[in-house]
């Protein structure tokens, strides 16, 4: 796969809106064409080449393009925005909206990411080796159809609002999380391998949540039904099975009420 290497040569004064750093925007372009793509610093338009040294031509299609950001992109927003295929590797950290509205392809960040990583994600794969801030795989403000597909894996800790309004796909946080996991969830799977402070599954209608650490404050709307053995992310666990949120509306299927499932590692 042809590799386009973007090496940061200057840091912006404000955060930079980099809608152009995605295989979709780069596909079919040569080195100079890529350097001429537009990036925004507030209301000022710059060339991508003003902030990155570009080496290598892109592939013919997004699927044949691998973008490597070789350095710190912690002030660069919207990397992988709306991407449909191909690959992005960030050798460093990335700013907000990494893989936002993404439909396909793969993103790998070796550092940390800021908030709104994988917002409104529909497909593809995101892997972050470090920590994530808030709103991992969440819905855009006011949209009741949040993440709908794909896999989002955060190796470190994450903040609040993980998978708000999740409809499908999988979010895995290997560290701890703060509050609000799968709030308003209507499907999908969220796995938190560490501890969560509370508000897990609030206003949840459907879907699955796995917490393999402890929940400090359990919501009163969840009721324990049994203890089961189950494999989570390739490992077997003994889990307490709760259903809820009993305070929320729930649809019926074949005469049975459909509830959200919360699995917490058994003591």
């Amino acid at each position: 796969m042809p590799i386009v290497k973007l090496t940061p040569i200057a840091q912006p004064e404000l955060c930079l809106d980099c809608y152009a750093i995605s295989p979709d925007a780069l596909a079919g372009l040569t080195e100079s064409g890529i350097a001429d793509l537009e990036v925004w610093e507030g209301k000022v338009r710059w060339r991508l080449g003003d902030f990155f040294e570009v080496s290598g031509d892109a592939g013919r299609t997004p699927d044949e393009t691998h973008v490597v950001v070789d350095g710190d992109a912690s002030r660069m927003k919207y990397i992988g925005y709306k991407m449909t295929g191909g690959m992005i590797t960030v050798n460093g950290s990335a700013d907000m909206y990494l893989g936002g509205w993404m439909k396909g392809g793969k993103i790998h960040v070796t550092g940390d990411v800021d908030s709104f990583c994988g917002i409104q994600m529909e497909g593809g794969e995101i892997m972050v080796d470090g920590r994530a801030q808030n709103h991992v795989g969440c819905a855009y403000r006011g949209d009741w159809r949040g993440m709908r597909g794909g896999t989002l894996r955060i190796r470190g800790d994450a903040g609040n609002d993980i998978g708000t309004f999740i409809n499908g796909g999988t979010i895995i946080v290997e560290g701890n999380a703060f509050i609000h996991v799968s709030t308003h969830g209507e499907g999908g799977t969220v796995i938190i391998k560490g501890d969560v402070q509370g508000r897990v599954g609030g206003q949840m209608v459907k879907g699955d949540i796995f917490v393999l650490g402890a929940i400090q404050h359990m919501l009163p709307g969840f009721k324990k039904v049994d203890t089961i053995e189950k494999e989570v992310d390739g490992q077997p666990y003994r889990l307490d099975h709760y259903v809820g949120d009993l305070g929320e509306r729930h649809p019926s299927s074949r005469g049975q009420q459909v509830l959200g499932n919360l699995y917490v590692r058994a003591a």
Partner: protein
Amino acid sequence: MPVTHTQVGCPYCGASCDDLEVVVSDDGKEILEVRNACAIGNEIFHHATKPGRVTRPRLRQEDGTHKEISYDEAVDYAAKVMIEAKKPLIYGFGSTNCEAMAAIGRVAEKGGAVLDNCASICHGPSFLAIFDNGYPSCTLGEVKNRADVVLFWGCNPMHAHPRHASRYSVFPRGFFTRRGHKNRFVICIDPRETDTAKISNLHLMVNQGHDYDLFNAFRTALRGHEIPEEVAGVPREQILEGVDAMKKARFISIFYGMGLCHTDGRNHNVDIAISLTRDLNAITKATIMAMRGHYNIAGPGQVWSWSYGFPYCIDLSKGSVAHMNPGDTSSIDLAMRNDCDAFFNIGTDAGAHFPIEAVKKLRKHPWITIDPNICMASEIADLHIPVAVVGVEEGGVVYRMDNVPIQFKKVIEPPEGVISDEELFNRIYMRMCELTETEPVWIHHPALDVAKAVTEE
């Protein structure tokens, strides 16, 4: 002979009382008496004519002092800052009229600015919850005439909205509530025993920051499920007593404040309150209302939603596309992330209200304060432009906390030469057009001509 102005609006809190009477001296320069207002509203009127008002713009000099300059020079300075900045941030508008909010829109569009209002550090989370979950609300008149169960959650109107309880929510006698407070069951949910808690029939002392859990318990109990013995520090019996009172109610009004919006979870606390209101509507009639802080802080939400589709945190830096996402385009986040390079503080005091770290970061860039009074934001500003006090020296449209528009009156003239917010913003806009050699765009509506002709007659 002194003149008495009646039905005057009060430029203090979100209750926007419009029944004030103001007695003005013969020469129209001094306010002698203010009737019906609370202590704070009263003070705002008297404050306007006290000595020590700043009447000309003040520009900071190299030695750190402020020097008086003309309005023309101030307008030129502000226009240049707006043009030169890559991402200017315009924040405030809690205490001005809707005419000014519309006028600043033209400046913001021209300058590619981020337009934000005090909701950003106040009821902004309410907007997010309303986007997500709707807003089953009503007017304060309906509360007065119908509500027999009133719930105050994370708010303390006895101090923050002094006449709220007497005008709308607890004491007044309404059409279906003829016995006043005897007709009403008041529930207060607050970690402290506030003065609002003291006038309540039931006070649930929730653990600070655990409102979401308590709402969840309310909703679970309302659907007939069992709840734990204690939730968020509140015993089960008390929760069930509250649920029972709500089930028996004919009309429930839930009022909430910063206790929900600015503890952990923020918009989700409001969101689940809205869900509870929706649940209650399956049994009886229930409504919810945000206890908006300033007399016209609902105004920018109305004006800008109409102009841009968003009530706050509006990033106009990409020209014709408005982008909103609090967390990214909100004032505090822009400041903390060093993501703006000029700051306009209008009709508020960001110097006092923002976290000190945010103030320090904003202060690295040009800071312009537009406010009638001396405040922290005016004293640390590079440029302070004084304007007329809306509601006292300038009339205009304001939106009350229930989003009812009210025409506020002018009772006295502003000090000699001091202009209104609207005129100032229009002059900044015109100057920006001159400097960029572009034609100003005024949205013209024939109805405005008719309205103007009628007013002039």
